[in-house]
């Protein structure tokens, strides 16, 4: 009765050997080079007096923040894309980041003396609630065409964003909004970034869930057929994305398009085998955000351009290219 028993009668297919690790190692080295560059690029001359302290107070925290936030947001994009079966969804096109921002503002207004950990929890909770709203709306949308899904997310995000702005105007926090949410690593120093280690746990959890996420990426029906508790996985995945977005928003601000560009480029090059793609997505996220931050730091020294602005430019171009490509393929 079992299929396995008569396997001998069928010529075994040529199995792909273990994927060569050389390209991954090269990508790792390249990323490492960017990370090292990030440690040594800046206005302050590290050879000057107090250079060592400066290194530990700003450069190391900033670089660690780049690594953590970059990989977390890229992985978040990947998770959302699997859960919605849509290539265009990521935390800033699903409203997740906007909800996190609303949560952050609320925490500032209602609990002015709260610490960064409390703000992080509130922002993550708001992000979770908002993403569940997005998922619930998607379930009711009849036409789930490729482009309708991100449009729904962007619209929901815009509504929440307006609310946040209104709230900020009426509480005199408007000026803060701009600097908060324009994602930037300028203000990341020792004592400010440590909560970001939480997102490392998010990345680790994604590795554990990789196979289940691949199955979920085939849709509710196929997942149910394969015995996967689909709704539970959606909840869990959404929670992971919410934590990553909430924490990143509190510490750094929005990092637009990161979760969109990186997973899609990786999928284009390698297909959608999630388990073997995950290291690539992590590295890609780190490399892209670090490269953009380096550009932002150097184009008009001694001033800085926020990384979100550079990412926005790169990301918007990539987004358009992707839409065109998907339309060509039908």
């Amino acid at each position, binding site marked *: *009765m*079992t*299929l*396995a028993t*008569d*396997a001998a*009668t*069928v*010529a*075994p*297919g*040529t*199995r*792909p050997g273990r994927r060569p690790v050389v390209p991954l190692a090269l990508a790792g080295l390249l990323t490492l080079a960017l990370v090292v560059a990030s440690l040594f690029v800046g206005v302050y001359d590290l050879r000057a007096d107090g250079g060592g302290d400066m290194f530990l107070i700003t450069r190391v925290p900033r670089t660690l923040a780049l690594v953590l936030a970059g990989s977390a947001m890229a992985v978040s994009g990947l998770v959302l894309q*699997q859960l919605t*079966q*849509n*290539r265009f969804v990521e935390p800033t096109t699903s409203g997740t980041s906007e909800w996190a921002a609303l949560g952050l503002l609320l925490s500032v207004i209602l609990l002015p003396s709260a610490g960064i950990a409390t703000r992080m929890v509130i922002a993550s909770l708001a992000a979770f609630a908002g993403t569940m709203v997005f998922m619930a709306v998607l379930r009711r949308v009849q036409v789930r065409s490729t482009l309708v899904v991100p449009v729904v997310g962007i619209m929901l995000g815009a509504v929440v964003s307006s609310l946040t702005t209104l709230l900020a105007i009426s509480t005199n926090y408007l000026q803060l909004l701009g600097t908060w949410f324009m994602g930037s690593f300028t203000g990341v120093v020792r004592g400010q970034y440590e909560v970001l280690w939480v997102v490392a746990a998010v990345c680790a959890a994604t590795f554990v869930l*990789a*196979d*289940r996420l*691949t*199955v979920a*990426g*085939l*849709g*509710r*029906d*196929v997942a*149910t*057929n*394969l*015995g*996967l*508790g689909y709704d539970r996985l959606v909840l869990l995945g959404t929670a992971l994305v919410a934590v990553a977005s909430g924490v990143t928003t509190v510490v750094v601000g929005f990092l637009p398009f990161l979760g969109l560009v990186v997973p899609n480029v990786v*999928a284009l090059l390698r*297909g*959608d*085998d999630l*388990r073997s793609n995950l290291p690539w997505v992590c590295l890609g996220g780190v490399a892209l955000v670090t490269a953009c931050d380096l550009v932002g730091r150097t184009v008009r020294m001694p001033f800085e351009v926020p990384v979100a602005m550079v990412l926005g430019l790169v990301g918007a171009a990539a987004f358009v290219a992707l839409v065109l490509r998907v339309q060509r*393929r039908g």
Partner: protein
Amino acid sequence: MITLDGVAKTYGDVHALGPVDLEIPTGGVTALVGPNGAGKSTMLTIVGRLLGADAGRVTVGGLDVVTARPRELAKRLAILRQENHFVARLTVRQLVQLGRFPHSQGRITRDDEAAVDTALGFLDLVDLQHRFLDELSGGQRQRAYVAMVLAQDTEYVLLDEPLNNLDMQHAVSMMARLRRAADELGKTVVLVVHDINFASAYADQVVAMTEGRVRYVGTPREVMTDAVLSDVFATPVTVVEGPGYPLAVYYRA
């Protein structure tokens, strides 16, 4: 055995199914036939636990499809729906490997690989196994989906219009493979077919439905009569003797 006991479903005001009482015996090929909107797919999807019934109870091999543990059920019962649009860019082999998920939870073992090889061989996909799904023709892709369901290695296999979008050649070879799956692998295959003559040529049992009810159950010879088919399809049908099995002719009213 698959049993349906008072199973009913309505969509809003539209009465879609039932109440249906039906027993589908273990082994062989059972074809669900009937006009559009007869409730065939609804019934199949409820049996395959992808859709909840409003009333009644379904058991497959003794397991209640609503209350059984999902993982256990996934080792007994596999279902393939009619429309499958996967965004994921997977190779044929990667897709078929996912069929092993209930057994391996993603950690593919030697046994899993063997089952994947068997399923690929069974559907003649060995040469295509490293191609991406989006590089295949519709017929090849349909074969890959069926291979995934076979790799799941369940006793019961439900298929909603597996011949959809297949041309004559590929439809015939698909039906022949499903017949072989029942005969050689001992599976219980239940499928929705649009073309009554395919049911006549390949099925052991035909279940004819109209308006959400099961109207006739029997062997192809029992169901393939002028009176039954004209009634079920609401159009004049003449049954003639074909090459070893009866054929329904209905092209000119």
